[in-house]
């Protein structure tokens, strides 16, 4: 059994595939997931940069590769319809022969960006509406292909410049109707006693809601999680938080529905999110309620006008 304490390879290490003999040079470590380490690599003799993931366990990694392959083939058929062919997501799958054992790896497209919570911290919470929308679009896409993401957390959402969103680490993805393979306690529906760990669209939406609450008001979420004993922890605390906190107000009705699992599917959730983030902007620009001082000033000016007209008439 492999353990997760494998040290990362230093920059400059050359990874040669056992089967296909491709060579990749490690530049640096990009991140460490639950079942592998991801490196930034350069294909030897080429300029392009790729992300290379080395798995701790052949079976786990292959399971992830299976999901990626299936997503890719479905995506490809969709892209052909739309006639925009993106660079392939999954480039190569192979083994690296280290001194004492073979380490499985796969190479994928490299996406530059930062984790969602870091992006929001840097650019400000005004970006939450848009990045949230794009994340929901990604989730809807995944759901429509018959998968749930499972382990949704800020570290697994990559935001590149101008708020483009990508999901990374597909190790927790499972087929709809199956048990969720991998999760993180805060974002887990089961942790809040709010439902099962069976993968359905609402599971991802619940995690998304927690993620948004965290981005908007992390302190409040921490307190809510801490306040109760594990066996009595429930969504009531979350719901009161959603209602109480002014920072959550713009999203409160959406968050409430997601926490209660009331969305029929992620398409519906996406539509409501859209309405929610665009509604206030439109109301703000159009003249809304006329302020009282303006009305009285207007009335006053009419009176003066009448007075002036009368005055002009009599004189």
């Amino acid at each position: 059994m492999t353990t997760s304490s494998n040290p990362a390879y230093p920059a400059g290490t050359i990874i040669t595939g056992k089967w296909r003999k491709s060579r990749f040079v490690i530049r640096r470590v990009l991140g460490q997931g639950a079942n592998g380490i991801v490196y930034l690599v350069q294909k030897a003799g080429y300029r392009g940069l790729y992300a290379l993931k080395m798995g701790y366990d052949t079976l786990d990694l292959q399971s992830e590769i299976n999901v990626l392959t299936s997503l890719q083939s479905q995506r490809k058929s969709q892209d052909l319809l739309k006639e925009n062919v993106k660079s392939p997501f999954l480039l190569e799958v192979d083994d690296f022969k280290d001194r004492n054992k073979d380490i499985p790896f796969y190479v994928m497209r490299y996406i530059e960006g930062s984790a969602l919570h870091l992006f929001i911290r840097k650019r400000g919470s005004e970006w939450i509406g848009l990045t949230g929308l794009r994340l929901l679009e990604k989730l809807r896409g995944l759901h429509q292909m018959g998968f749930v993401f499972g382990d949704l957390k800020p570290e697994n959402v990559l935001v590149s410049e101008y708020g483009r969103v990508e999901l990374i680490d597909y190790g927790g993805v499972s087929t709809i109707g199956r048990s969720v393979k991998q999760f993180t306690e805060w974002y887990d529906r089961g942790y809040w006693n709010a439902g099962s760990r069976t993968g359905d669209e609402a599971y991802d939406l619940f995690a998304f809601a927690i993620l948004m609450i965290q981005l908007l008001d992390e302190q409040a979420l921490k307190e809510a999680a801490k306040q109760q004993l594990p066996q009595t922890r429930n969504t009531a605390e979350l719901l009161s938080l959603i209602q109480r906190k002014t920072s959550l107000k713009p999203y409160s009705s959406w968050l409430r529905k997601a926490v209660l699992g009331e969305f029929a599917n992620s398409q519906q959730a996406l539509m409501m999110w859209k309405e929610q983030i665009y509604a206030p902007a439109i109301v703000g620009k159009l003249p809304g309620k006329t302020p009282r001082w303006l009305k009285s000033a207007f009335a006053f000016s009419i009176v003066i006008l009448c007075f002036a007209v009368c005055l002009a008439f009599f004189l």
Partner: protein
Amino acid sequence: MKQILLITDGCSNVGASPILAAAHALQEGITVNVAGVVDYGTIGELGGLEIAEIAKAGGGISRIVGTRQLAQTMQMMTRKTVVQTIQQAVNKELKEILGHDSLEELPPSQRSKVVTVVDELTETTPLQVALLIDASASMKPKLAAVEDAIRDLMLSLQARMGTSELAVFHYPSRGSSEDAVLDLNWTSDLSSLRSLFQRIQMKGATPTGPAILKVIDFFRYGTLDGHQSWRQNAEEGEGMLGDYVV
């Protein structure tokens, strides 16, 4: 598929060797996982070694964790062991069909189908997990966390497509007998897991070995009394043993 998950915080000190007992379990087709729970200080060199040895003899995994990570660790160990057991069976088939020893020797293009089968079986195979909880005096402050972890494990098991059942034992018992006490019979109902350990009275001794043997008997006969009758039968005639292979 059958598993025993032992949750303890130290060395056994009474009765048969727990390592031998775990080896017996494996012989019966029951995998033994061990979670060592330590919050303050360490489990001691001897305790740590024993935990690792029990898991090795029982064909399972051992981990030493604090109460905070217990739930997550139990979930992970159970899942990993299921996968491992299925993988072993699949590897055996692979060897017969393709002459390859293991999944790792297959080229990546062929792995995908094998893993699909393993994933499928992992999700659908019926599973029984017997939790055996060390209730010696030092475990007392950790029992609340253990109970929460059991609830969490049940939640994860419920999500599987195959039937999954849990049973809960603790040891030592309050009475003169030092074997395991059944707290909860096979169930897949989350609500039956409330306030499991309120009645437990803690005792100092840690008879891990005999407790494991008792749980093996429970798997065999579905009752804790089966052990006695089996012993009597065995004394009457050696050939009787063969009848009880599950």
